[in-house]
Structures are given as C-alpha cells and as structure tokens.
C-alpha cells in the first residue's frame, strides 16, 4: 500500500477529541454532550479520510460509527459497557489507521476493520452482507513492540546473583532497557520488616530479540513473582497482569503508561475490562 499523505493536524485533533469523549463515556455512560461531540468528530474524520487523506478504511469505519453515535444520542441504543468498549476499540483502530504503521500486517488490519464494522452494524441492527461477521477468537494486540517484565520480589535474596540491580545490568547488556519503574508500594512499615528482605517491585520495558528473555528469567522463580509479556501481546494479558498484582490497577496502570507498554487508550480499555468483568471478552482488534 502506498503511504498516504501525512494527516494534517486537525485529523489527529479530531481523533484526540473523539478519544477523550469516548473515555468520558466510559465514566459517564450516556453523557449526551460527549456523544454529540464524538459524532461530530467522527463525521469530520470520515470527511478528512475520504477527501483529503485517501484512507478509505478509516472513512468506512467512521461512516459505520457515526450512525451508532446518533442512535445513542437519540436514546435508541443503550450506552452500556459493551458499547463503550466497542467505541474504544474503534477509536484505537482509527488511531492505527491514521498512523499507518502500527499494524504490521495490512491484511490483518483490514480484517480488524471489517470485524469492527460488522459489530457496529450488528449493534445498529443493520447487518451488512458485504462485511463478514466476526469469526473465531478476536484479539486486540497492544502496540508496544518491546517485552514487558513485571517483577515482585518476595523476601530474602539468596545472594548477589539474585540482586535486581544486577538483573537490570544483565538486561541492559542483552537488549535495550527502555524504561524501569520501581515500585515500593509493598514495603511494610519499617518496624515490621527485616531490611534484608527484598520487597521491591519493578515494571520494565525491554527490547530484546527472540525467546531469550524467558530463559534469562527462569532462575527468578524462587525469589520473585515475575510475569513476562511479549511484544504485541494480547491486551487481555495486561488485563490479567492488572488483576493479579496487589497494587491498585489505576496506580499500576500509570506505571505501565510510563513504560510505554500500554497507551492511554489501551489502559482505559484494560481498566474498563477489569471494572466490567461480565462485559464482553476483551476485545478484538488485529
């Protein structure tokens, strides 16, 4: 596919405004001003995509999205968690289409767009035979192209080889250490604590080739709980991480943002999925 013209800033501003309004809907479902502004943003995006940017996929998705927003505005649809999550997915995919490079696979990206359109139309009661309904499991993969390592030390280290600072040095030697966030949330009060125990936590963004990381970390099992998420892994893996860790999800989420392992949109979706466990299974993007 030929690279499209660089989107002018107003398209990105529209998308940012749309994302902000949809995120507001996640907190205030049915907020009419947000829906109205979102619809206006989508209409503008559809026009830009079709006339100026030459992005037919983006135009098609925006045109499928606008009627749903109008239905929401007219109260013909319930603005429930499932709907908001679908909106968030659409916004995420629109961002990918504008960036034109987040998705590695053109076919995968088109399939994701088609699936989203199919779901939008199905929700509006307008099944389109030209658009295949979603088939099989759908997976929304995060945009981050680095490994994410989440570590929680749980007590006495058996020696210098277990020292987290040494591990960081090894990671630095064997790849690119992109971000390290140190968490001291689990430190007990000093009176009830043996200072020789290590209770630090680390969130680490690390770019490294191949399957080496898992081998590298295999020895950590006895001194730390660790979780290694590969590049472009399903967003649900991060939802699981947020669910399993003891820190409040919003607080841990900010650390994942600081590592650039999740984007703001991905984090909002993950938090929404955590808050609505009975909602649809997290999402569906390419």
């Amino acid at each position, binding site marked *: 596919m030929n690279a499209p013209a660089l989107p002018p800033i107003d398209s990105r501003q529209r998308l940012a405004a749309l994302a902000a309004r949809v995120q507001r809907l996640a907190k205030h479902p049915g907020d009419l001003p947000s829906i109205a502004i979102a619809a206006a943003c989508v209409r503008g995006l559809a026009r830009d995509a079709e006339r100026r940017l030459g992005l037919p996929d983006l135009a098609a998705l925006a045109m499928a999205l606008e009627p749903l927003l109008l239905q929401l505005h007219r109260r013909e649809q319930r603005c429930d968690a499932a709907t908001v999550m679908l909106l968030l997915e659409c916004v995420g995919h629109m961002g990918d289409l504008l960036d034109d490079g987040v998705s590695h696979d053109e076919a995968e990206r088109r399939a994701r767009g088609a699936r989203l359109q199919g779901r939008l139309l199905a929700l509006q009661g307008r099944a389109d035979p030209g658009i295949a309904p979603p088939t099989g499991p759908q997976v929304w993969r995060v945009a981050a192209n680095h490994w994410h390592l989440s570590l929680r030390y749980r007590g006495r280290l058996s020696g210098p080889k277990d*020292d987290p*600072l040494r591990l960081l040095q090894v990671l630095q030697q064997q790849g690119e250490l992109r971000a390290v966030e140190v968490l001291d949330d689990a430190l007990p009060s000093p009176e009830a604590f043996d*200072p020789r125990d290590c209770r*630090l936590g680390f969130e680490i963004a690390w770019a490294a080739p191949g399957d080496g990381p898992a081998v590298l970390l295999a020895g950590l099992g006895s001194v730390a709980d660790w979780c290694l998420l590969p590049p472009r892994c399903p967003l649900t893996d991060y939802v699981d991480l947020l669910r399993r860790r003891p820190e409040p999800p919003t607080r841990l989420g900010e650390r994942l943002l600081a590592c650039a392992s999740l984007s703001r949109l991905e984090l909002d979706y993950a938090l929404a999925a955590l808050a609505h466990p009975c909602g649809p299974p997290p999402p569906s993007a390419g």
Partner: protein
Amino acid sequence: MKLLAECRDNRTVLRLSGALTAAGASAAQRQLWAALAAAAGDCELDLSGLRRIDAIGLQLLLLARQQALRQGRRLHLGRLGIAVGRSLAPCRPHACFAAATDDGQAA
C-alpha cells in the same frame, strides 16, 4: 556504611559512605532512622561517598523516604558517586525518589 549528618540552611544533609548492601542493612537502617529522628527540617541524602549499593540498599533509601514522610519531612536524593550512579542508573533514582515523594504527599 558510615553516616555523617550535617545541618545546612534549615536542612540536614546525610552523607553516606562505604557500602549500603544487604550485608549491613540492619545496622544501616538503625543509623538512618536515628539520623532522621535527630534531623531538623527536610533532609538530603548525599551518596557521593558511597562505594557500593545493591537493591536492598536502594530499598532502604526508599524506606527512609517513607519514614521521613511519616515524620512530616521530605527526604531528597542528592549527589551520587560514580559507581553508585552506574548501579542505580537504570532505575532513574532521582525520578524514582521524586515520584515516590509525590505519591507520599498525595496519600
């Protein structure tokens, strides 16, 4: 580890030297807590004389920061020696300390 406290401009500078590691963590904690209890105003850690630090040492410094907050004062991270700076560099220690202080204040 050795600790020297020096009052300067309404703040107390805590100069650490030697090694701040798991091996001497208990003694180091006692010294730090005593220095914090005796300090006037906010405190600053000067690690330029420290030769070695490990994760337990870093954890002790973060605990000291929490302890200072409980006492209603701030504990800032000041100068680092070359070796300690190299060991802590991946953790961005100054940002880590500042963020932790902000969190503590927010709480």
